[in-house]
């Protein structure tokens, strides 16, 4: 029978927390801005703001979310001793 240590549980909790936070950002950028698109119509460097978010802004945020997650988790692996051996 294998036994997970407290360190392992903490690793998983932190993973779930960062996943939830990033997912919330993803949700706001996609669906909240999408839902309010008609009201967020002010001009933003020439574009209507919500058009710009749909065409560029959201995409940039998506790339940043994934980039941050990879960086954060790779560091978390090291801190909790679950990183793969190189």
């Amino acid at each position, binding site marked *: *029978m*294998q*036994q997970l240590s407290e360190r392992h549980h903490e690793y998983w909790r932190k993973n779930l927390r960062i996943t939830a936070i990033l997912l919330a950002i993803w949700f706001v950028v996609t669906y909240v801005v999408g839902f309010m698109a008609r009201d967020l119509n002010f001009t933003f460097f020439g574009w209507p703001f919500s058009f710009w978010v749909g065409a560029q802004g959201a*995409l940039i945020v*998506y790339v940043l979310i*994934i980039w941050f997650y990879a960086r954060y*988790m*790779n560091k978390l692996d090291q801190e909790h001793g679950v990183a793969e051996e*190189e």
Partner: protein
Amino acid sequence: MAGLSFDTSGAGGGAAANKAFKQQLNKVYGWYTAGFLAFVIVLAVLEQMGLSRQWIGFIFLLATVALYAGIGIMSRTSDAAEYYVAGRRVPAVYNGMATGADWMSAASFIGMAGTLYLTGYGGLAFIMGWTGGYCLVALFLAPYLRKFGQFTIPDFLGARYEGNLPRFIGICAAILCSFTYVVAQIYGVGLITTRLSGLAFEIGIFVGLGGILVCSFLGGMRAVTWTQVAQYIILIIAYMIPVAWLSVKQTGVPIPQAVYGNQLQKVTEREKQLREDPKEKEVIAAFKAKADEFDAKLKDIPAALAAEKAAATQKVADLKAANAPAAEIQAAEKALAAVPANEADAKKAWTAAKAANAARAVPLAGMPSHAAQFAGDPNGDEKAQKTFNESRRNFLALVFCLMVGTAALPHILMRYYTTPSVKEARESVTWSLFFIFLLYFTAPALAVLVKYEVFTVLVGTPFDQLPRWITSWSRVDPALLSVVDINKDGIFQLGEMKIGGDIIVLATPEIGGLPYVVSGMVAAGGLAAALSTADGLLLTIANALSHDLYYKMIDPNAPTARRVMISKILLLIVALAAASVAAQKPADILFLVSAAFSFAAAAFFPALVLGVFWKRANKWGASLGMIAGLGITFYYMVTTQPWLRGVFGVTSPVELWWGIQPISAGLFGVPLGFAVIIIVSLLTPAPTRQTQELVEHVRYPDLKLAKA
């Protein structure tokens, strides 16, 4: 490409070997990119010296297909780990490029900018949906699947949900969505080969198929991976150059993504003018009159049919009596033959003609204002409010289905098995999305720039001075582009052009006035996009059959060599089957592609995510959840989508749930899938300890446990 070798020491290797391998790849693909650019420049010079367009098309077609085939031959393998997962040592950056090419299909490369041109803000659902899905891949799936470390998605379902039933459902769902998708790719291949070479559509399909097959047949995932990297490089260069050129031409700045906001403002201004333009109104009135004409005929079909027949017969007789030229008589006889044979035919033809004309009797040729978010008006009357709400709801539903579908398509998820480690799998998603992002944030710019060109340069041009691309494209297929001077003023109005979304990208170089060699390059890029996706999809189907069905379920003792052999044979059969379906030109390609996303979303996403994040999920929950999700999605599409209704002979009235369009049927399948898995799992016994340990195993990149 001399010296290209993907045979570094055995699978896995150490960190040092991986690093050396990556450096070697950098060098090879660096030279490759330079070689491709040199090739294009040489062709450009030859064009100036008088090389014909037909030859340029041929050279692009043959050179690129030969290149992909060459990489396939160099990477041939019969080793299972190499064949199924490219030896698991594809560096994150290159896996990102390969995933990008695998992901971006003919629909992304050729179709998307066209959709944006035609629908404006509404088309952004595709941009957001097809990129935001990677957040779900990164957060919920890629690292865990890599840690699990088998070969296919049904593998995961079979191991996690203890048995062959979930695996079998997984196989069926994987084949269903991959096959619908691959038919669309092969169709795209046929379209481009026809355009590049002038061959017949059916022959074009099989030429392209040859390129696909040499690659995936000989080398499996290994060959496909290295070819896809090569294809990504071609497709991204081919997409960027014409847009940058158009941007320089219109704004003086070579970075269209940064400056097209201003062009969008000008387009919006111009839209207002065109809506009020008296000439455009004339065109609308002319189409309206035609629609009314057919409407009148439909009111009394027998009389109208008799009158039409009499008139056509009379004309033939008159011409013959007057000894008119043979050509005129022939034309009149043809017109007589074209008169509907009976009342049923007449009704069908006239109803269609009435609808076609009525559809064109609208401002801006039926396009919404480019920057307007959703149709209707939230502050208007009841009807406008309803339109607004439904339009917004459908936009968000489509985004949802495309995102979840992205995170569930087996041919994409499979790619994350090929990285050397969990760490690289995570980084690889970042690179995947980055490379996809490059094309996706350019597409809306392309759409606006082309629209500006059409609205300001083309509209108002005399008909005899229309640019050459209009005639050459309407000759390829009138369904893609047709112009008609319906109000007979000799001047081109926006309403007089009917343009299909699929030619916007392919015609952009000509619209921007670039040399033909760039058109050839763009077509080669579209070919690369379609071929790379088809490769990945065919491999997914063949692997699902050979690895999951044959090896895991039928003959677990089969030797490796036989498994790989069987996979190759199946690949050939599936490819031929898909090509023969594509050669029939099935009615609704775009719908088929989008349907694949809804199917994948409903079938796989709940089972995969709960499999990692909820230990209690068990075999029965997952099996029933997948069936229920897929079932309701399928049911909704069959009862509401016109083409499928025809195929399955559904005659009941169309009943939309909350006004959701059939394309977003996954919106119902995904939550139902989650609900069924959770409820059924709780009602049936928990999975075994071993399975729960497997879940723990995939959650930690390297689990070193103290034995209790």
